[in-house]
């Protein structure tokens, strides 16, 4: 696993060096277990039109404010061949806690535990919630926030929804990068 991650990192760095400014970054395959112990690889979703990866948390109030909205997005797009994967990379949030949290908040999409935050490092993810949308070739087509309202009371821009709709319509993603405040991903000590 360590060797695979190292190779993945090298590949990503190589990709970044060789990526022209207007070319999307390609993500290499990885494998993580969900909270039931089942392994999931990115390649399992290679036939999807889009893969949504959201770095989430059990204890972050911002991530939790999006629970319902994340589930709604999953329900709205699951029959449109869009894969939805939550990743928890926080060192202090256990698999048991993730399972309990998913049950309590009725989160039905796949949630993987990123032990040692290797995948968060690979994506260079820093906050929760933080979204990466990949196309079928695992290129990052959108990176950033779910929408522009932490509280959900005054949403002006449904950024994730818009990016997915554009991908599903075979259009270019018009807004590829957004930012939002969130909780820092708690990484293991370096």
């Amino acid at each position: 696993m360590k060797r695979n991650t190292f190779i993945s990192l090298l590949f990503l760095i190589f990709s970044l060096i060789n990526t022209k400014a207007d070319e999307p970054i390609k993500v290499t395959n990885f494998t993580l277990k969900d909270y039931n112990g089942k392994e999931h690889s990115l390649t399992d979703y290679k036939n999807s039109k889009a893969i949504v990866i959201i770095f989430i948390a059990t204890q972050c109030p911002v991530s939790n404010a999006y629970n319902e909205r994340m589930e709604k997005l999953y329900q709205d797009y699951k029959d449109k061949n869009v894969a939805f994967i939550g990743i928890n990379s926080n060192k202090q949030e256990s698999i048991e806690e993730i399972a309990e949290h998913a049950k309590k908040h009725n989160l039905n999409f796949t949630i993987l535990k990123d032990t040692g935050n290797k995948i968060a490092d690979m994506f260079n993810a820093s906050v929760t919630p933080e979204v990466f949308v990949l196309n079928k070739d695992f290129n990052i087509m959108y990176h950033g926030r779910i929408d522009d309202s932490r509280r959900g009371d005054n949403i002006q821009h449904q950024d994730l929804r818009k990016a997915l709709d554009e991908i599903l319509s075979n259009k270019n993603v018009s807004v590829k990068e957004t930012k939002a405040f969130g909780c820092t991903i708690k990484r293991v000590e370096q």
Partner: protein
Amino acid sequence: MKPRGNLLTALLFLFSILILTTDEAQVRELKVEKIDKKKLEDILKNRNQKLLFLNLWATWCVPCREEFPDIIKLVNDYKNKPIDFYGISIDYPDEVNSKVIPFLKKQKANFTSFVNGFDKDEDLINMLDKNWNGALPSTFIFDKSGKKVSLLEGKQTYKIFKNELDRLLK
């Protein structure tokens, strides 16, 4: 109830009112103004030969709350040095009285505090650092000319803050 009991109850009631009123008055006297693009630009432009230590935090952010006492200690230890200590809370402006000020009071905050008044969070993030993703807490240090010289992302310790300030004060 006996007259004595009535008197005691009345006194207790009055005492409670007095305590509540005093607390509310104390909370009211601590000001947390909204900061927008222009105000932040002015702060960065008018450094008056001082460094700027700018901490971004929120009451909902556990590591922000955890590092706060270290910042309070830092402000006390560096009060005679040419440094302005400012904080910007990322709570909503309508949460200032209910969340931000009570927290600052409890911490005995000893530096100027603002609340995010930018229309878009992204504008504040990009104004501070285009490569920053908005992870809280984060601390930015600007030199005497208003140029950003340090970004400390995530929870820091007193020692890290101190080393950084000592390095920049040389």
